Each structure stands twice: as C-alpha cells, then as structure tokens.
C-alpha cells in the first residue's frame, strides 16, 4: 500500500487550470523527485498536499484511506511537512524554541512553567539519532541557510512526519552543506520517511531520487525510474512540444541601431546579481529568461536604481550612470514596470487618474499647483488609448480587474514617454486578451524606436516577444541567443547544462 496516493487532482484559479488530472503515488522510504519548468504546477501541488489550497477535483489517499486536507494543521497531523528555509521559523526565537513551535510543551502537572530541561534533552537525543549538528541556542535569524533547513527537518522528524516536501533546498547552500543535507535525507529515507524533492538541479535528482515525476502546464507528463531516463530526455519532457520562436517581425533588423543600454559586470550589494552583462539596441526587445531565483527582477531593479550596486557599469545612451535612482532614471527616459502590481506599481486607494499621472505630476504644475483640467485630459487620453475599462477616471484602481490594473500600470509607464522600458513579468495574472494587447503595445513601441527589456519566467512568451534572449542563472548572465529559430528546448538545455558544468567541477574536487 502506498503511503500517499493522489488521483486526478484538479486545481484552477478562475478559468485557468493550474493542475489538471494529476495522479501520483509515493511509497514509504522513497525519495521522489518532482520537476518541471516555472509555472508547471509544482508549488501548487505542494500547497494542496499541505492543506494550503483546496483542490477542485480529485482524491487523496493516505495509507490507503481517503483524506481531505482542509488546513495545514490537517496535513501536519497526518505527518506531512514542508521544509522551506525560514518561512516557518520565528526569526528571534532560538533553535530550541522554534523546534517546539506549535507543539505541546512539556510541563509539570500543577505548574504552568515550561520544562526546558526536558526539551533540551529530547532535542539532543534527536540530533544524535540523526547525526546532525544544529546550534539550538542560536536565534533562527542568526543561523545559516543550512542550519535553518536542518532545524526544520529536525522539527518535522520530532513530530513524526512520514512525508517531507523539500522545495529547492540547496538553492543557497554551499557544496559541503549540500552534502550534509543529502546524508541526512538518505538517513531519513533508510528510516522509512518518504521525501518529495522539488528542484531545478537535475544532477541532484540523479544522485538522490528513485523515481522522477515531470509536470508540464499543470499536467503530469510522466513518472519514471531514474535508470530509464537521462538529463536530455528529462529536459525534452519538461519543454514539451517543439516550439519555435515566432518573434517580432523578422524584417526588422536592429543590429545597426545604436546601443541604448549597456550593462557590464553588474553586481549588487546583496549579491543577488553577481555578474550581469546585457545590452539593448534602439528599437529592440531583449528577453531575459531564467529559472526562479536567477536574479532577473534584481537585475532590472539595479538598473533602475532601487537596488544598490557595488560593481560594474551601466551605460545609458553611451553615458555612464554612477548611481542611478528612480528620479534620474525617469529623467533619462527609463521606466520600470514592476512584477508586484499591488506592492510596487499601483497605489491601490488612489484613483486611476492619480495613479497614471503620478510620475509626471510636475508636467502639469505651475509653482507646485496642479492644473487639474490638463491632468484629466491626459489621463483620459491614456485610458482610451489603452482601452482601460472603467466608468470614470476617478474610479479607485482597487476595483479594477487584474488586466485593467496592469493597463493602468502601462499607462503610467507610457505617460513619461520613455525610451527604455524595463518590464518585469508584465503579463502575470492578466487575461489572454490583455496579454496580447500588452505584447502588441510593446512591439509598437519598439517599432517606434523605443527599447524594451522583457523579463518573464514564461519561456514561450519570451520567445514570442523578444528579438534576442539573455539567460540568467544564479545571478549571472550565462548566455545570449538570437531569438530567430530558437526553440524552447535549446533554451532549457542552456539553463540545465551550465549547471552540470559547475557541479561536475566541484565533483572533481572531491
């Protein structure tokens, strides 16, 4: 009997299916890898299995019995845990306090004080049993990423978890730390714990997992034993159908146009971007693609000037910018369309008009006083130009649909008449119609001689829109490809194979 069996799992948001008909079974003492491109449905699957999301259809069987996971608590009570660095830790609690978070503390019968001694002993026993070292007296915020991961695993083991989900656990670990983690996972496996391991790092999968399940666009493409596949076949399965970049009209040659943006060796203070080189010509749309956490958003933020850089050069129209800031960027004709619409792009309790005109208020002011009629006229222009559906420009943006909100964001970007657009996931959470409207808009802008940097985690989309493609990985730009004739598979080959190089290099050391 399988430990966990799911059949025909469906999950949709609105009309979009995020998961459809996914079936899977996990045995005790198995490490099962779950792979797929960005947006394939891996995170959603985890969220369903841990009671965060409710599926629209399908059944879940736990040790042969049908269960419904209504809340994270239900999942935890069954023995399902997710390990996710620091998301489930209280930063200023010590390791020991975090270990017992939400658990029943040992107490005496007639005295409410917690018996820390007993907890400490139990924790030490647990550590010895698993053969790992976690400094339990340290506060979680002072721990390294591995220590935090190990602490979470310790906690999962303490409450008797039978199934662990690990989501990209090695993303910020050094190789030695990764080894420690792997040893622990193999130990847990030998004790009969099942582990579902989600990662982009295919080499890790071949080292750890017995079986591999590939998801694509919310569907299970296949489950196979590790011996039955190799890396290339996996990549093919993830990429799916052969898709050749359609791209913008090929007639348009931009290679002889002057460079608008040149970035060389860019590094940010927080090292989220380690070494980025990109360049964009006049009238060109440059796609930037990378797997989650590759540093794409951070690159745009550094160029725009809201993330401090510590090395490298940013040249705009041939002029070097030493310390860009939003104010200087806007003045130089650069706009940022941020990924996080509610958090960074719109002021939700302001009206459509006020949002659109915010970056250019000084255009309508004389001595600080706003000329309202002129402001209203321009807002109206952009509302009709972008076909924003609203009764009035005084409507608060809060009540608009996602697609219309994004149009307001674009109106706000266009109103400053920029020469360079930095777009971060500009079609996220918008409907198909708006999506193609946004694509058309950006192409029009490019044809009129403006330039675009287009970041998206949707590879199909990047291939559709961009003239040229830059691939980012772990904070570095690793490849630059012309979009003409480029296939999805070729791009993924770049993403995954580069990783192999760096990993085999380290393997050689050992």
């Amino acid at each position, binding site marked *: 009997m399988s430990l966990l069996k799911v059949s025909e799992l469906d999950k949709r948001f609105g009309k979009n299916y995020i998961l459809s008909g996914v079936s899977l079974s996990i045995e005790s003492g198995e490490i099962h890898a779950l792979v797929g491109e960005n947006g394939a449905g891996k995170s959603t699957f985890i969220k369903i299995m841990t009671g965060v999301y409710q599926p629209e259809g399908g059944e879940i069987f736990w040790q042969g019995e049908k269960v419904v996971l209504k809340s994270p608590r239900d999942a935890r009570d069954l023995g399902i845990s997710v390990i996710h660095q620091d998301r489930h830790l209280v930063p200023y609690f010590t390791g020991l306090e975090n270990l017992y978070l939400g658990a029943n503390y040992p107490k005496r019968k007639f005295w409410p004080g917690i018996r820390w001694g007993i907890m400490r002993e139990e924790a030490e026993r647990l550590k010895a049993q698993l053969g790992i070292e976690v400094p339990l007296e340290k506060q979680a915020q002072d721990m390294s990423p591995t220590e935090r991961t190990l602490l979470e695993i310790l906690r999962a083991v303490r409450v008797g978890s039978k199934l662990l989900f690990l989501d990209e656990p090695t993303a910020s670990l050094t190789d030695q730390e990764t080894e420690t983690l792997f040893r622990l996972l193999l130990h847990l496996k030998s004790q009969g714990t099942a582990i579902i391991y989600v990662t982009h790092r295919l080499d890790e999968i071949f080292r750890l997992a017995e079986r591999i399940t590939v998801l694509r666009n919310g569907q299970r493409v296949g489950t196979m034993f590790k011996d039955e596949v190799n890396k290339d076949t996996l990549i093919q399965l993830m990429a799916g159908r052969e898709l050749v970049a359609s791209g913008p009209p090929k007639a348009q040659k931009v290679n002889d146009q002057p460079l608008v943006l040149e970035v060389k060796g860019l590094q940010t203070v927080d090292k989220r971007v380690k070494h980025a080189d990109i360049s964009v010509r006049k009238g060109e749309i440059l796609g930037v693609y990378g797997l989650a956490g590759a540093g794409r958003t951070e690159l745009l933020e550094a160029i725009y000037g*809201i993330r401090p850089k510590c090395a490298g050069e940013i040249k705009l129209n041939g002029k070097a910018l030493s310390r860009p800031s939003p104010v200087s960027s806007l003045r130089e004709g650069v706009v940022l369309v941020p990924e996080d619409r509610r958090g*960074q*792009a719109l002021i939700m309790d*302001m009206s459509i008009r006020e949002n659109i005109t915010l*970056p250019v208020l000084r255009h309508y002011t004389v001595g600080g*006083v706003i000329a309202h009629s002129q402001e209203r006229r321009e807002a109206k222009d952009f509302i009709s130009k972008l076909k924003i559906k609203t009764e009035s420009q005084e409507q608060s943006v809060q009540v608009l649909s996602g697609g219309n909100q994004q149009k307001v964001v674009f109106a706000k970007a266009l109103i400053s008449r920029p020469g360079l657009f930095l777009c971060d996931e500009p079609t996220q959470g918008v409907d198909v119609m708006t999506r193609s409207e946004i694509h058309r808009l950006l192409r029009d802008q490019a044809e009129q001689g403006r330039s675009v940097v287009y970041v998206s985690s949707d590879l199909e989309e990047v291939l559709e829109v961009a003239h040229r493609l830059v691939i980012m990985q772990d904070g570095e730009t690793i490849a630059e490809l012309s979009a003409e004739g480029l296939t999805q598979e070729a791009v993924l080959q770049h993403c995954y194979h580069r990783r192999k190089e760096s990993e085999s290099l380290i393997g050689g050391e050992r």
Partner: protein
Amino acid sequence: MEERGKLNGLRLLRMYGTVIAAVLIVLGFSVLSPSSFATLDNAVNISRQISFLVIIALGATLVMAVGEFDLSVGAMASFGGVFSAKLAVQGLPLGAAFLIPVGVAFIIGLINGWIVTQFRVLSFITTMAMGTILGGFTFWFTGGTTIFEHIPVGFRYVGQTEWVGIPILSFLMIMLTLIFWFVMVHTAFGRQLYALGGNEAASRIAGIKVGTNKNLAFAICAALAALAGILMASRLGSAHPTGGNGLFLPAYAAAFLGMTSFKEGVPNIWGTFVGAAIIGILANGLTILEVPTFMQDVITGVIVISAVILQKIGRR
C-alpha cells in the same frame, strides 16, 4: 437604476455620516439648552476653543497622510508656548518671539523625519522619544512652573483680540485649514504625500523623493504644533510646561474621525476639521449641561470608537 441610486445613497451616508453626526449633536444641544448653547456668542466661543485643536490636528493629518505618526505634537505645543513666552519675557520683538519657536519646531520636525526615513526607525518610537526630550527641555526652561510674570501685554494680542466680532484665533484656524486643504488637494506636494502613504515602494519607483517629502510632513506638523502652543499661551497670557500635552489625544481623535468622512479611510483636511469641531462642540455643550469632565472624556472616547467601527462596517 434603482439599485445604483440606493448604493449611492449609502455611499453618501458613509461619506457624510460624520458631518450629519455633527449636525445632530448641534441640534441636540440646541434643544437641550437653547438659551446658552444655541447663541451666536457661543458659536464664536466654540470657534475660538477649537482653534488650537484644529491647528495641531492639521499637522497630525499631514503626517498620517504619509502613513506615519507624530506622538510628540502635545509636548511640542507645550515647548512652543513656553519657548515663545520666555522669548517675549526676554524682551524680544513679538514677531520674533512667535516665529523663532515655530522655526525651531520645524527643524526638530525635520530631525524626526530624518531619523524615521534615514534609519527606518518606527515613527511611533522616534517621536515618542522626541516628545520626552522636548518635555525635558520645557521643564528645564521653566523650572516646572508656569511663566506669567513680565509677559508683555502685546503677547496676548493675537490670542485675545477680536476683529469684527470674530477672534483672530478663529481667523487663523480657518485660514490654515483652507491653506492645507489647498496644499493637500491641489498641489503636487499634497498628492505626493498621499501617494507615499498609499504605497511607499510604488511612490519611490514613480520618482517621488520619499525622504524629502516625509521629512517635510514631519516638519510642518511640528511647526503647527508649536504654533498651536504659542497661540494657547497668547490666549491665556501665560505658558505652562505641560499646557499643550492635553491636545495630543484629541488631535488624533479628530484626525481619525476625519478619516471616516469625505475621503473614506484617508486622512483629509476637511474631515479633520469636522472631527475637531465635533470634539469641541461636545466639550462645550456638555460643559453647558454641567456634565462632569470625566463623563465628557467617556463620551468623546465612545464617539470616536463608534465612528471608526461604523465606517469599517460601512465599507464591507
């Protein structure tokens, strides 16, 4: 169509509920005490009584608009009153005695803002500490006693004179309210303050200078608080080291009441004015009805809480 009319009716009630409440309170007192409350003299009196509160609450509204708090306004009012009286006693020209404390307050406000924006310290903590510091200075200046000896007669002019039957204080209050309404609604500065309060990250990306604008809001708030304290000292002809402290809570009560009207959930100037008026009218009316002071506090508190709850319910 009818559905829409109904919705608009509800919306209007929500937007002007606080104003309606103010009118009802006035009507209630007028019925209960027609001979002392409902007189022109008393109306003039109320306008004078609330002038300090309105002026201090205007500043609080600006700081609330950028999503921060200034808890030092009460201490700043006391500081301003004492500082100004001290300067007047020293024989400085009256203009200087009035304006120097306002200027110093402006700078202290800038410091408040600078600490908040530069070091990302919560404004709550920063201004609370600044209030304590100011309180300390105020006691130092005065030795803890009220300043009333040797205050020149001219110092009382602004606080005690009426023009065409209307106190200068009331004129000042109306003027400042109009000025700040204009600033908040019709200038880029006001729009930027609201944008900052709505979403700081988005404002930064839209090219708004976060630090400069926030610092100015704090500075203006502090200057207005000091001005309120000075006017109060001028009105009383004396300055007490804790004279302005009592304005702090009513000022925020007025601003919160104000957030329930005109622009829902957003601090706004006319709302604050109406809020301050409600608090002032209640104090005045209840005193006339000889309700003990402690009951007045209870009633004012209950009204503020009810207004805020009603607005939350209305928004659902």
